[in-house]
Structures are given as C-alpha cells and as structure tokens.
C-alpha cells in the first residue's frame, strides 16, 4: 500500500537497543511529524536527528510488539518501535 502522508501529526516512540544506545546517547526518542506513514519514514526522521545511525540505514532491524517490520510497513500514532543493530560477524 502506498504511503499517504496526512496532515495529522503522528507520535512514534523509538527505543534503541545495544550499541545504538551508545551511538545516539539516549535510550528512546519520540518522532512527532506529519510526514510519517511507514517504517522507512520513521527511520529517515531518526537518522536526521542522529546522523551516527546513517551507516546502518536500510539495515536497522525494527520491531513492533516483537515482530520485525519491513520498511514499507505502515505505522500508527502511538506505536512503539524498537531499533536493533544487525550483527553478522563471527569474530
């Protein structure tokens, strides 16, 4: 479903896990914006605020109620999203 930005300001809480907490310096952040429709919009807003996350753009794992979301998944006002870093090295 295509994103339809509305005039209603949505409030989405983003909680950071693992090294993202250190990268951004906070445990959570609230995105308040009208131009939010899907997960990707939230990611863009968060990266705009915390540029250190840019390195992981399109790789950040995003969960809502424990379910991993694709970037085109729609979000709703009041959603709480968890951002987790994808870790792939075996050392």
């Amino acid at each position: 479903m295509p994103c339809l930005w509305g005039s209603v300001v949505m409030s989405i809480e983003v909680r950071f896990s693992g090294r993202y907490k250190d990268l951004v310096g906070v445990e959570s952040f609230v995105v308040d914006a009208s131009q939010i429709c899907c997960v990707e919009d939230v990611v863009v807003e968060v990266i705009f605020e915390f540029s250190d996350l840019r390195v992981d753009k399109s790789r950040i794992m995003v969960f809502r109620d424990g379910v991993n979301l694709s970037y085109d998944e729609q979000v709703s006002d009041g959603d709480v999203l968890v951002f987790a870093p994808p870790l792939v090295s075996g050392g």
Partner: protein
Amino acid sequence: MDENRFDRQLRAKSWGKETQELVGKKSVLVVGAGGLGSHSVSLLVRLGFGRIVVVDSDVVEVSNLPRVNVFDSDDVGKSKAVVLAQKASRIGGPSVVLGKDLFVDEESIEGLFEGIDIVVDATDNIKTRLLLNRECVKRKVLFVYAGLEESSGMVLGVIPGLSACLECLRLSPEKKDAGVPVIGSVPGLVAGLQISEVVSLLSGKKPLGLVVMQCFESLDIEIVEVKRRSDCPVCGEV
C-alpha cells in the same frame, strides 16, 4: 561420568547431575571456527558435551589471533577447524571433537546434520547463517545464532516451528560481512551467552528472545522480544 572433572558444576543447583548427563548425550554442530566458534567449542568441551563437529574452510591468519581461543602463532596457515578440534580435544573429558575443513553451502550442508541435536551458528556471513537457519527449521533441529560487531553481540535461540527464526529478523546482507571490526574480548562474552542458550534449549526451555549485549562504552544486556512473522518464508508455514 567423571565426577571429579565436573565437580564444580555438578554441585551447582542450576546444573547438577541431570544436566551433566543430558549434555553428555548431545551432538553439536558448530559452523565457524573464528572468534565465536573457537570459544564456543572450548566451552562445549569443558561443559562435557558428547560430540562436537566443527566446520570451517578458512585457515588461521595472524589477524585472527586477538579474538580466537586456543589458536597460537604456530597455527597460522593451518585449517581452523582441524586445529581447533585437535586443541579442544586436548582439554580432555568425554567429548569427541571432529574438525572438518569444509565450506558450507547448499550441497555440503546435506552431510552435516546426521545425529546433530543443535547447531551453533558462529559464521561470518549472512548467507551461510540463513542457510543454516533454513536447514534447521526444515529438519526441526535447534539453532542458536550469535553475531558480533565492535563491542556488541547478539544471540537468538530458535526452536523450529515454535519461536522466531533468523529469517524473521530480516537480517540484511548489504554490508560487507567479513572483516567487520570486533574487539578481542567480546567473542568470549558472546560465546558464553550463546552456549548458555544452547544448554537452555536442550533442557527444554523456551528461547530468551533476542539477547543484545553491549560493553566497553557502557555495559548493557537486554532481551528484545521477538515473535514469529506470519509471512516468514522459512518458518511461516512450519
């Protein structure tokens, strides 16, 4: 059972004779003999697991030595899996450790699962991790993923058909996998968490969820709840 060898853990209330006998009957496939795999194999032997098969197609490089367990400078150029199996066997005890110098792909994976109770994912790339995950879900074999980057680690235990699998996380393969920066002391910490989850799943417990660990800049371990995705191409139909 060698009660003298395992005395300390036999007397631990959360372990005891029952768990010792359980792990002694289990076969573990460890894929990857780098920082994670070398620590994991060492831990599995020290805990008294019955049979451990370790697979890796790489040779030991000097740049591996800060992160790996049991390897030393004399091992540079030798097969990681073979050397790790030889050295882990020297720890002694009941464990049988087999090393296979083998690249895991769609073909070679077929011969690796015979008699295996659980798979420890210690690889260094998403493609192999997802292949292992898919095979474990298909064969209903327990699976424990772990990953590292810099001072961070992550562990996910998978019970096929019951809990979220690795594919449910939509791990992206876009970033270069091998050569990711990792601090030398982190693999041992994460391997400890990974093997704890191995014992936990074999004991019939549910997976913890996605365990996310961060150290050095801060010290933080949290568990992120992870549910199965109904549209997961691997476990969605299981």
